[in-house]
């Protein structure tokens, strides 16, 4: 059974543990600027929204990559960046309408959420269960998917 990150902004206290855990897992240092998940604050900190890739079915990033550096992991369902193949052209960063693929100027490659190969550290680190890793069939995911579907721009109609 594939699993997905389920995010509930109402439970987020903006403690940034997820950003810390993510950057430590991927970069080996506590550097929220390089975290694949980001907390955005609203209303002067009264509301916080954790935000990362939903591993959407459309996979704009995958289709936009000119060298097949973005590949879906068949086990986790996550789209992963192959660092040895990525040339750093950044087309995926502008093609993804969710803005969840970012360019890392330090490495000249792009970075995105890879679900930590099936053991997402953000969910593990979250003290309030604002981020949980659950079966993809879980109904709460529908809302996130609709959000994703809202940005489906490719096809207008099928006759």
């Amino acid at each position, binding site marked *: 059974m594939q699993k997905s990150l389920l995010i509930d*902004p109402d439970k987020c206290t903006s403690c940034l543990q997820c950003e810390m855990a993510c950057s430590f897992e991927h970069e080996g240092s506590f550097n929220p600027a390089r975290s694949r998940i*980001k907390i*955005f604050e*609203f209303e002067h900190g009264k509301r916080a*929204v954790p*935000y990362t890739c939903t591993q959407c079915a459309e996979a*704009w990033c995958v*289709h*936009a990559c*000119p*060298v*097949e550096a973005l590949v879906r992991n068949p086990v986790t369902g996550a789209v992963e960046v192959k660092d040895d*193949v990525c*040339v*750093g*052209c*950044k*087309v995926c*960063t*502008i*093609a*993804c*309408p*969710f*803005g*969840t*693929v*970012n*360019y*890392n*100027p330090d490495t*000249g490659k792009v970075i995105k959420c890879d679900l930590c190969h099936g053991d997402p550290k953000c969910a593990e680190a979250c003290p309030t269960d604002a981020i949980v890793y659950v079966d993809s069939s879980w109904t709460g995911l*529908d*809302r*996130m998917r*609709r*959000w994703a579907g*809202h*940005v489906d*721009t*490719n*096809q*207008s*109609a*099928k*006759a």
Partner: protein
Amino acid sequence: MAGIPFFVEGTTMNHVIVGAGPAGVIASETLSRMGHGGRITVLSDEPEPPYSRMAIPYLLAENIDEEGTCLRHTDGHYDGLGITVKHDSVTAIDAAAKSLSLASGVSLAFDRLLLATGAHPIRPPIPGMDLEKVMSCWTLADARRIMEHAKPGDNVVLMGAGFIGCIILEALVARQVNLTVIEMADRMVARMMDRTGGDMIAAWCREKGVDVHVSTRVNGVSRNSDGSLTLDLEGKAPVSADLVVCATGVASNTGFLEGSGIETDIGVMVDEHLETSVPGIYAAGDVAAGFDFMTGGHDVHAIQPTASEHGRIAALNMAGNRTAYRGSLVMNTLNTLGLISTSYGLWDGVEGGDVATAADARAYRYLRLNFRDDVLVGCLALGLTQHVGVLRGLIQTKTPLGKWKDVLMADPHQIMSAYLATAQDASRRAA
């Protein structure tokens, strides 16, 4: 016949795709995966396996080897999908007889045809453009020649500072040549950046040691007795060079369609199904003048995302799955010696629409948002690398920003907050 796993009994549909760039390859894969394969033949007029021209600058910079330019990396990828990649080129097309004449002398029949022939570099009509050391940078063969000739310390002149010119610029600097850039327009990347942004990119390049001349016309190139070149400039002192790299634009490859009955303009005219004026013949990618998502008119968007979307949707239609395309959104991103620039949609704004800007020339930061009413229709960014894609999200969904437009007018950098707030509101309404 081996190698055609998705052969559908009772159909012997011949799908022929002319061109092995991203549009052609993605179309062939889509056809195969739909299970409507029949026969899928991709014609490539270059000897290499299908590769990405976009990767060439990274080859020039020696970040990757030739293998790294390949569109696909799995051994037997095409065979496994029942796709035959044939190295040949089309000399003529008989639309009525549904037959292609190939350079090798044979003819090839098709039931459905996709024209994905891309574009070719063009040079200005001035003397000296045929000299051996005046080179385009378009194919892998071009890249090999430039790599052979552009040695550290050489004087190299880059003619053209458009998008392709700027991407090559980066690679030439990585090759440690002494670089002079000559651009006819009044700014760098004039087709994706306004004056403010273009000037910042030029200032940045000059700071990094590149000699940039905008608003400068080359009258001709001549060869000196020692083998070096001299560029004669309009109203300026001549410039000498060991090598001239020409990036003065590209044009769609439509020449072979003359007399075919297929309507062409700046590219092959296609409708919302990517079909040309001749039924059963489609076009995709740099050769296709498809619908522009923002203007509703026809345009050639020679960019990877358009090639990819065209290729996929053309293939769906070729296989009989009628699918309309909303049109392509023009978008570009460029790294000029470490300065990242991005443009989307109507980046120059619309009449009567509001414009929000935030510019810091010293920090090389610039953000410009263009609105029609409270909808984002285009933008420019310099120095933005985080969550850039939400700009596409907002433009392509035509999300009404409501009160967030006022926030953005006051501070364009609030774009991510505006996106999350409006996208979440939209999702809540849908829930």
